[in-house]
């Protein structure tokens, strides 16, 4: 165990088999958020199969994502691959005239054969802009872990954001529309604004950025995007993430301070929602308090969730695993964790399973590949991908979030088979 000088919280660094998704998975929620954008993965049959499997059900006949599957011919010569890509994009845009932004998404194979999607995006933009803007980012597993795909996607949009010197707040990271609306209402009541959400609901509706832009990160996995926005002059507000009553309050307060909002006004504004959240949470807190918790690395949400579950729900943390730790984004969260917390970064899945079996936690948070096998061993699990796909941020979702963890325990209590 290496001792980290910065926090003095020891972190177990693991390098072995990582049981995590790649960044392509982000397409599943990004395409829902930006409904005028299309995500074209340039990759293999594996990439297409992954997104299909991760998306679970096929709701749309023609989803706003697809894969340009590389064939042997494309591997033989990059010149041909570029021509082929142009042909596929032509075919796609002819089919989907409603698309205003096309993301070319790099994958493991496209990275390894060094297919330059940035050049391709430029080349295609010359033909299709302004009807269609063509951007590119990497969702490859060799470069991105699961939610990092959103980071690389948003980062690709930063250079095209309009410049502005107006003082404004930018909330960065995909949130469910319902949560955006709740936050917007609170900011309005506080008299704080203008507020922009990034990514926007329409990819063409880009938020401005400049020296007077204050960034509030809604998601804990936007390292590169935050740095790119800072480079464009924006200021990152220091805050934990808006998960749980405590996190949401501190998050909102951080913005309120930047706008010099009177504290009394702030407390009064958040009071009704905060009170509702506390009442709602209490019911689930009772079933969660004192229970031990083991989190496998998955979405980068592990540390904020562990903070919420330990401080607000009274759970005991056995191990908090997370794919990687970016101090700039995570310091405020780590300092809220109990002093003796066991943090692990990266993964060696077999060894981590050994540790989990030994610890026999009351609840294990893990991916769907591990959940049923662990249940079969008698462990109670909460599958983690639901935490990414469900609205969990903000006051009015706090009880829902706790319920997601209380449900497996409740289920275990009910079943006699």
């Amino acid at each position, binding site marked *: 165990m290496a001792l980290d000088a910065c926090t003095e919280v020891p972190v177990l660094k693991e390098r072995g088999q990582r049981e995590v998704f790649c960044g392509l998975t982000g397409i599943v929620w990004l395409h829902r958020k930006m409904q005028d954008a299309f995500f074209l993965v340039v990759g293999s049959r594996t990439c297409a199969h992954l997104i299909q499997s991760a998306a679970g059900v096929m709701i749309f006949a023609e989803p706003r994502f697809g894969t340009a599957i590389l064939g042997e011919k494309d591997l033989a010569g990059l010149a041909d691959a570029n021509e082929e890509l142009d042909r596929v994009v032509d075919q796609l845009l002819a089919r989907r005239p409603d698309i205003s932004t096309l993301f070319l998404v790099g994958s*493991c194979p496209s990275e*390894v054969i060094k297919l330059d999607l940035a050049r391709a995006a430029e080349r295609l933009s010359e033909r299709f802009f302004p009807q269609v803007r063509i951007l590119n980012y990497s969702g490859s597993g060799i470069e991105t872990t699961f939610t990092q795909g959103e980071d690389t996607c948003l980062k690709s949009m930063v250079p095209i954001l309009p410049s502005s010197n107006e003082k404004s707040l930018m909330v960065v990271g995909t949130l469910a529309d319902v949560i955006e609306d709740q936050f917007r209402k609170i900011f309005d009541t506080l008299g704080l604004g203008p507020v922009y959400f990034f990514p926007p609901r329409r990819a063409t509706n880009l938020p401005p950025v400049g020296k007077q832009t204050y960034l509030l990160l809604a998601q804990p996995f936007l390292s590169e995007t935050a740095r790119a926005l800072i480079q464009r002059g924006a200021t990152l507000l220091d805050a934990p993430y808006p998960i749980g009553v405590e996190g949401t309050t501190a998050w909102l307060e951080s913005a309120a301070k930047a706008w010099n909002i009177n504290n009394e006004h702030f407390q009064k504004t958040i009071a009704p929602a905060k009170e509702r959240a506390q009442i709602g949470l209490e019911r689930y807190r009772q079933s969660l308090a004192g229970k031990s918790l083991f989190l496998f690395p998955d979405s980068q949400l592990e540390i904020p969730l562990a903070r919420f579950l330990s401080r607000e729900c009274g759970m005991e943390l056995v191990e908090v695993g997370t794919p990687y730790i970016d101090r700039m984004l995570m310091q405020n969260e780590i300092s809220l964790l109990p002093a003796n917390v066991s943090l692990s970064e990266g993964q060696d899945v077999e060894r981590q399973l050994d540790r989990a079996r030994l610890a026999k936690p009351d609840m294990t948070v893990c991916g769907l590949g591990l959940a049923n096998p662990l249940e079969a061993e008698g462990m109670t699990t909460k599958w983690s991908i639901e935490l990414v796909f469900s609205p969990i941020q903000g006051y009015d979702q706090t009880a829902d979030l706790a319920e997601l963890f209380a449900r497996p325990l409740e289920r275990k209590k009910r079943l006699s088979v």
Partner: protein
Amino acid sequence: MELTLWTYEGPPHVGAMRIATSMEDVHYVLHAPQGDTYADLLFTMIERRDRRPPVTYTTFQARDLGGDTAELVKTSVKDAYERFKPQAMLVGESCTAELIQDQPGSLAKSMNLPVPVVSLELPAYSKKENWGASETLYHLVRTLLLPLVSDAKKEKEPLSRPKANIIGPTALGFRCRDDVREVIKLLGEIGVEVNVVAPLGSTPADILRIPQADFNICLYPEIALTTCSWLNRTFGQPVVRAVPIGIGATIDFIKEVAQVAQIDVSEYLERSKSQTLGLWDSARITSEADSAASRLPWYSRSVDSTYLTGKRVFIFGDATHVLAAARIATEELGFTVVGVGTYSREFAREVRDLAKSYGLEAVISDDYLTVEAKVAEAAPELVLGTQMERHIAKRLGIPCAVISTPIHVQDVPARYSPQMGWEGANVIFDSWVHPLMMGLEEHLIGMFREDFEFKQGHMSHLHTADSPTPVAVIAQDNSNGEVHWSADGEAELKKIPFFVRSKVKRNTEKFAADNGIIAITAEVLYEAKAKIGR
């Protein structure tokens, strides 16, 4: 480069995973980048497997690419062997690893592990899942059995019970778990002993016993044909090719088994034919033994099934299940096939021939949108397909039954639900007929449709939504010279039961357009009906 929205098959290494996961004491080391572990959840979620697939991934990242990824393979193979102690190991790569050319199979072989190591080279940029499964099974069986080839072709003891291997059932196959049980039962009824079932539920030690059987049953040709052909060439084991899905095919299967096993089944077949009647006899009710017969033949002859006659059906899936389904649909339920196709290009020829026999052109495609367009064009009353066609059918408002992979969690039911053998035919009757309107109910709806209390769109027990396409009558503006409905034509159209109305409407409009008729009157409607028929 090929634009794909949804895929019928995964990459070939997922096929290899299906073989590894089917078996016990086999471990697969897969040289693959971070993220490829997603495939685990196909097994743990769709099949609700209580164990992780026996697969170790190297999950390399960009930072590893500069270094020694070959060393990473060796470490993974060594760790996996020490932790799992399998009887045999599969070593291969996924699409990205194929590009960096570490040759993990050769690396693993050079490590002198004390168990057989099978090197899998599955070209990810030209081949797909079923091919990958077929190749993996073949290479595994071949690697394990090659040392035995010299002492092969043992003398057959003349008086022993004939013994068969069942080759082909896999994890994530369509109802394989239950089909195996049904086929074992079927073979037991005619006195054939089962030697080895592989790959599902077998170990490498079981594979070594394969040559002890008299013949092989190639249960799922997509997966098993390559292996069965090699066993035939190497050990002289005949191959039974009939796939017992449906009554006719089950009888063919029994006859073919009887022929290679040199047993007489005439009495058994006679009995199973006669036993399709007498379903309610007290002897049958109180007997614990299942009858060696299916209820399908009698249910299909029962008068309420008259309404099934000529139902228009569209069939799509893997080749094996499509060929079987077409035969059942036409010969055993009296449907009319209006469209047929497969995504299994390896077996396209058989499906093309079948389509030709119905005067159709087969849809050989793995492009989901093409299949959807073909279904819409054929306007069937029932779709028999995969989970993909279930989505297509739902959108088009057509009943659907799933007959083939790719599957979803609901295609792995808790109940015993085979497709093969006599019980399989029962299951098929129920699962294809229930989505259709029950005959008598259809009759009653027709009778009561004028009743003011009868709610339009009422579809009895069906979960599907109301009438498929809203019957919006074409604009009354007749100045543009396009086909339109006159007032009396429209009134007449409304008298037609809603569940066939949109089809009548479509047919009539086409008839009008073809014959240069602008205004569709009641007369035109009936003229079209007479010309087009149902």
